[in-house]
């Protein structure tokens, strides 16, 4: 059950997926699509494990006061607030007591957590009392404030103003900026690593330099030859290199996948 059943499952599902590739019939397609849904759904359930891990690590940092523990609070707030925004939306144009509820809920959960980990009995009491009180405030607002609502089964939350703002003005800017750091890193990597140390490094360097010079206007008549050389490098040796790597990777993937299905390679399963 612990070891043999998983190996058998890998074998059965693996072989089925190989066979279905050659069977175009709609029954085979139906099972194929159903199995892909399994994968998606297992993945979604697993996210709970991920969020638990993130929370556990962050809470550990806060509790143990490890260096930079203050920033773990930022992560936890970001996570919590984003989930809250995703499940709530305004019913009209007014915010009502929306943010009061949010603050009450956040502080309520925080003080309950504080109370739970605190060792001193008197502080625990304060933590629990404050937490329950704040949660009560939250419940009251959530029930009696008509200007906003929770939506779990329909996706109003995705369109809610705060969810969009956090996405547009926090997530997107930071991520695109992270991406654009590549402009700098490609420059520093080129400076640091493109040294004509040996023949391989020289080939790498020369070919990169020619391609980088392909549209340089200050080269005069030589420029055209450089542009054509760059074009040739990109379409001839580059294609040859890619073809060889692709074939090699293809064989490597099939070999590894076969080993997994046949139970020869089981490193991914751990022990015991």
């Amino acid at each position: 059950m612990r070891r043999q059943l998983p190996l058998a499952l890998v074998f059965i599902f693996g072989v089925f997926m190989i066979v279905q590739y050659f069977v175009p019939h709609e029954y085979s397609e139906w099972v194929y699509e159903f199995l892909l849904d399994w994968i998606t759904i297992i993945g979604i359930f697993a996210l709970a494990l991920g969020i638990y891990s993130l929370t556990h690590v962050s809470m550990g940092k806060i509790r143990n006061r490890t260096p930079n523990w203050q920033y773990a609070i930022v992560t936890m707030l970001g996570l919590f607030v984003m989930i809250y925004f995703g499940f709530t939306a305004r019913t009209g144009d007014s915010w009502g007591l929306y943010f009061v509820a949010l603050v009450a809920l956040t502080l309520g959960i925080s003080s309950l957590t504080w109370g739970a980990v605190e060792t001193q009995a008197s502080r625990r009491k304060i933590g629990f009392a404050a937490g329950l009180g704040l949660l009560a405030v939250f419940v009251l607002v959530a029930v009696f404030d008509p200007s906003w609502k929770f939506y779990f089964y329909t996706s109003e939350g995705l369109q809610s103003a705060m969810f969009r703002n956090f996405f547009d003005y926090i997530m997107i800017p930071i991520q695109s900026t992270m991406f654009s750091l590549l402009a700098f890193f490609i420059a520093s990597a080129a400076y640091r690593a493109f040294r004509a140390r040996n023949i391989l490094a020289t080939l790498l360097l020369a070919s990169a330099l020619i391609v980088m010079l392909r549209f340089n206007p200050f080269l005069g008549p030589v420029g055209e030859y450089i542009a054509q050389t760059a074009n040739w490098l990109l379409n001839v040796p580059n294609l040859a290199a890619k073809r060889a790597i692709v074939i090699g990777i293809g064989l490597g993937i099939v070999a590894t996948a076969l080993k997994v299905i046949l139970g020869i390679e089981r490193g991914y399963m751990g022990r015991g």
Partner: protein
Amino acid sequence: MEFGTYLWTTFAAFVILATFSFLYKDNPFYKFAEHLVVGVSAGYFVIILWHNGLVPNLFHRLADGDWYLLWMNSSKPWYIIPAILGVLMWTRFSKKYSWVSRWPLAVYIGVGTGLAIPLEMSNRVNKQLYAAMAEIDWSNFWGSRFLDVSAGYSDIIIFVGAIAALIYFFFSKAHTGVFGGVATFGIWILMIGFGASFGYTVMARISLFINRIQYMDNYWVQTAFDTSNPNFHAGFQILFWLLVAVLILYIVREIMAHLKTKAQQG
């Protein structure tokens, strides 16, 4: 642009600058931006997977009608199987039963690997092999211009280069003698190809930075000075200069600290 939107834009400008500050060194602003985006993006994916994954892919299939009837009146009751597998993943929360989570994992990996075998064989091996068996353009062997891509000799170089590079990847034969010579030619081809890819990508990466400059320019700087905006008031410029002041203060502080350590060393 309304003031509220500009407030958000200024915050975006702040986190953009905070992220860029990482290039200088790790600092509190970067730590803030980093931890914020980790939390927010994790929350974002919880919501996206809930609303766009779990609800349509599972709930709507299990409960077509009223949710409290659950899958009793569902048109696709067999979707209970992946739901059970998903729940089994949660046995990892328990020390005693965590081995049960291997079942869904085994299904997951079995499906993935089984899917990969024929697909990768077809796309990476068969199709590339077929593409390699191409006709060489003998009528235009020397090409019509300097290093002509469509010339016959280029076709031959592609073929020979690919074979040589493939020979480089042999694991069970030492790279010696003629075999070693061909393998060396193969790694040359690989390196030329890698260099060309690297050089080619530089342009796209610089564009990313230009795009960031444009964002800051168009949405943050210009709005602060856009008096034609009907909602314009002093608040816009106060916000703008506030962030600029923070930036300048940080730079000045860093320079002072640097000079101080220099003086102590010197």
